[in-house]
């Protein structure tokens, strides 16, 4: 009978486990002065080395630790950061930046031209195998020191989005002393010159950054910023409501309305240039056939995803990049037409009942698991047998980085931190692209992307990208899904937090009353 009781209680506990999660009391210490700002995100950073981090979560944190030469302001204008001014040679291939004087890294080393050169040499060096190498290496020839505070970038060709690319979080400047000492492991012990410095990182629990007392710019307003990975959507909302978290991202679509009515909380939907897509392994049958890829696009009901799953907090994607990104042109979305999909599949000789694998992260993007389950049902409806698997974010990244892991379809998204079509397309669709997990290869498209990168005339570039986007739509290596919005929840006593168009959670000016 004891067993019986304990098992009954165990099953009840299973049932109630959700309620228990993180539902601790919302008491805040009434201490005066600077405080700790708690940020709950859907998953945790992968690396704090901006040159080796390719996921948005990591970059939320690196933006606080590192300064870049230039940065974006709230309206996406490029403004000075470590560089106070810059000039371009007549042929546009040589750019000289003059640095702020007196800036120091968090380890006390001075920020000078040598340091900037060392930082860029590190990412440009092929042997370092850093994930974001191609962001810079494809157009930078070399970096040279002019004087203590003057550094020159020699380009391979005139590159229109140069400044935007330097404003990418991946352009964060490392302390040369730290990279020399730690090598690849700087991802776990980063040193930059930003307003917040690394304190501790307990994987799966929290990452703590503390204010850098010697920051050269405007002093940070809170004592520390703690990032917590909270996979559970419901738990994240609850943390915001109880005050256990000051900032949460993302807010589950089902909770947005409720939180809007809470007078302790501000809910803001920021536009974001993130497009969500379902990638296909285009090297693998049947996805090597363009008809099958188009069929999948016809099979998915984007309108219902937007209205029912995202509850209106998104819109159907009309191109491979978002409408906010420079170089966008709407090439249109595939209408929802399961009959057409079936017909295309029949033409391609795909037998009903063909088994395919669909992989998805959970908690990384707004309603990601739900969206994937819905797509699964859509694809089952046109005759596929879809094996579903959900992954933890870190393991998922590793799995989809390796084509031999066996994926067919994978849910992923791309935000363009440079806000320019070049970095929207080059990593994802060029044959050698660093994020080309669909293994898509098309010579004509490669040529267009290359041409777009090397052209400076704005009109010409726009036309090139329009053509490229059209080819991508027709070739359909993705199931184009939705343009996201970024729902950020903030406690009323917190100010200065916002989401940028490039989907950064900007915390540099955060203040907690």
């Amino acid at each position, binding site marked *: 009978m004891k067993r019986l009781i304990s098992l*009954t209680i*165990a099953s009840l506990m*299973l049932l109630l*486990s959700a309620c228990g999660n993180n539902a601790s009391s919302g008491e805040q210490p009434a201490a005066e002065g600077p405080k700790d700002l708690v940020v709950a995100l859907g998953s945790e950073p992968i690396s704090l080395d901006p040159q080796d981090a390719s996921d948005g979560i990591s970059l939320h944190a690196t933006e606080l630790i590192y300064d870049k030469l230039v940065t974006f302001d709230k309206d996406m204008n490029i403004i000075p950061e470590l560089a106070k001014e810059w000039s371009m040679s007549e042929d546009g291939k040589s750019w000289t930046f003059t640095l702020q004087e007196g800036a120091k890294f968090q380890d006390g080393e001075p920020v000078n031209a040598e340091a900037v050169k060392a930082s860029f040499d590190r990412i440009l060096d092929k042997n370092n195998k850093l994930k974001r190498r191609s962001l810079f290496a494809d157009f930078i020839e070399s970096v040279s020191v002019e004087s203590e505070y003057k550094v020159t970038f020699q380009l391979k060709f005139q590159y229109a989005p140069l400044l935007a690319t330097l404003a990418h979080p991946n352009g964060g400047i490392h302390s040369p002393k730290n990279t020399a000492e730690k090598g690849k492991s700087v991802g776990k012990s980063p040193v930059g010159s930003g307003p917040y410095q690394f304190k501790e990182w307990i994987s799966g629990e929290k990452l703590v950054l503390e204010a850098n007392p010697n920051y050269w710019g405007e002093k940070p307003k809170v004592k520390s910023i703690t990032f917590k990975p909270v996979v559970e959507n419901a738990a994240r909302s609850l943390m915001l409501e109880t005050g256990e978290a000051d900032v949460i991202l993302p807010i589950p679509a089902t909770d947005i309305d409720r939180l809007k009515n809470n007078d302790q909380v501000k809910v803001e939907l920021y536009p974001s240039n993130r497009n969500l897509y379902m990638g296909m392994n285009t090297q693998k049958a049947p996805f090597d056939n363009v008809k099958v890829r188009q069929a999948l696009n016809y099979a998915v009901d984007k309108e219902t995803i937007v209205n029912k799953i995202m509850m209106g907090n998104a819109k159907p994607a009309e191109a491979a990049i978002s409408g906010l990104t420079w170089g966008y042109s709407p090439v249109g979305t595939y209408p929802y037409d399961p009959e057409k999909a079936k017909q295309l599949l029949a033409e391609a000789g795909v037998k009903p009942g063909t088994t395919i694998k669909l992989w998805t992260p959970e908690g990384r993007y707004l309603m990601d698991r739900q969206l994937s389950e819905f797509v*699964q049902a859509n694809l089952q409806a046109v005759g596929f047998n879809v094996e579903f698997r959900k992954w933890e974010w870190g393991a998922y990244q590793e799995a989809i980085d390796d084509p031999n892991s066996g994926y067919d379809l994978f849910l992923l998204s791309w935000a363009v931190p440079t806000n320019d079509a070049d970095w929207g397309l080059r990593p994802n669709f060029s044959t050698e692209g660093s994020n080309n997990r669909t293994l898509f290869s098309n010579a004509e498209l490669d040529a267009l992307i290359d041409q777009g990168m090397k052209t400076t005339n704005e009109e010409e570039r726009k036309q090139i990208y329009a053509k490229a986007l059209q080819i991508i739509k027709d070739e359909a290596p993705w199931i184009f899904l939705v343009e996201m919005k970024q729902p950020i929840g903030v406690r009323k006593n917190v100010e200065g937090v916002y989401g940028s168009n490039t989907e950064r959670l900007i915390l540099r000016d955060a203040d907690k009353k």
Partner: protein
Amino acid sequence: MSQIDLALQQDESTSEHAYASRSQWKMMVSRFKKNKRAMVGFWMVVFCVTVALLAPWVAPYDPIEQNMQIMLEGPSLSHPFGTDEFGRDILSRIIHGTQISLMTGIVGVLIAVILGVALGTISGYFGGLADTLIMRIMDIFMAFPSFLLALAIVSVLGPGMINVMIAIGIFSVPTFARLSRSSVISIKDKEYIEAVKAMGGSNLHIIIKHVIPNSIAPIIVLSSMRIATAIITAAGLSFLGMGAQPPTPEWGAMLSTGREYLRVAPHVSTMPGLAIMFLVLGFNMLGDGLRDALDPKMKL
């Protein structure tokens, strides 16, 4: 009680031994029938088995088909248990889920019984080095908390219901091996075993015809209780995403996905939670009753 009566009839043979076991059965059945709690458990399990067998006919809707127009609706006449985040009928999903839960419970325990009884009998009957070796390995297995062990096994094998069944089977083996070893030891020196030995019966013959049949009673009791544990464990693994993958209507998985909607639609996770409780309670009461009926002195 028809199953047990049937077993009784099949058991009829001419030997003295069979006659004795027949009267034992009768006593057992009458003791079981007198135990109200056991009978309630028995009928709860019968109910679930019936629902599982008739699932395609009794479920009012397709358990997998989505209808986004009616997502997250509360219980109503047309959907007595409400609908989930994809507008699927929760009642139909629970009915189909009964099949999965029963299947994992029964298959998992069956694997454990076959392996456990085989190992335990060898160990108890032959003793010596085989005994030491087998039982020490079992000890190693028992050193791990059972759920953790199951989780580790599924992590290695990869998620999926078949792997969950294997994991449940493996983590239950030591319990069965120990139990069957101890009951084999208690009977292997009895006179009737000696008699068969004296008549020249081979070890295999003795084990299969005499040792196992006479040591199986506690195994049956333990099985019915382990099925309950197995169902909970399977639901737990699915809850953590290691078991059934969408859109399979597995109770633990339903419970898990429903959590996100706990504030807006509590029925989505409450209903499968109640279903798990019902079935597990049934098996536990049945197991307790079987124990009392088979041997009132036996303690498990």
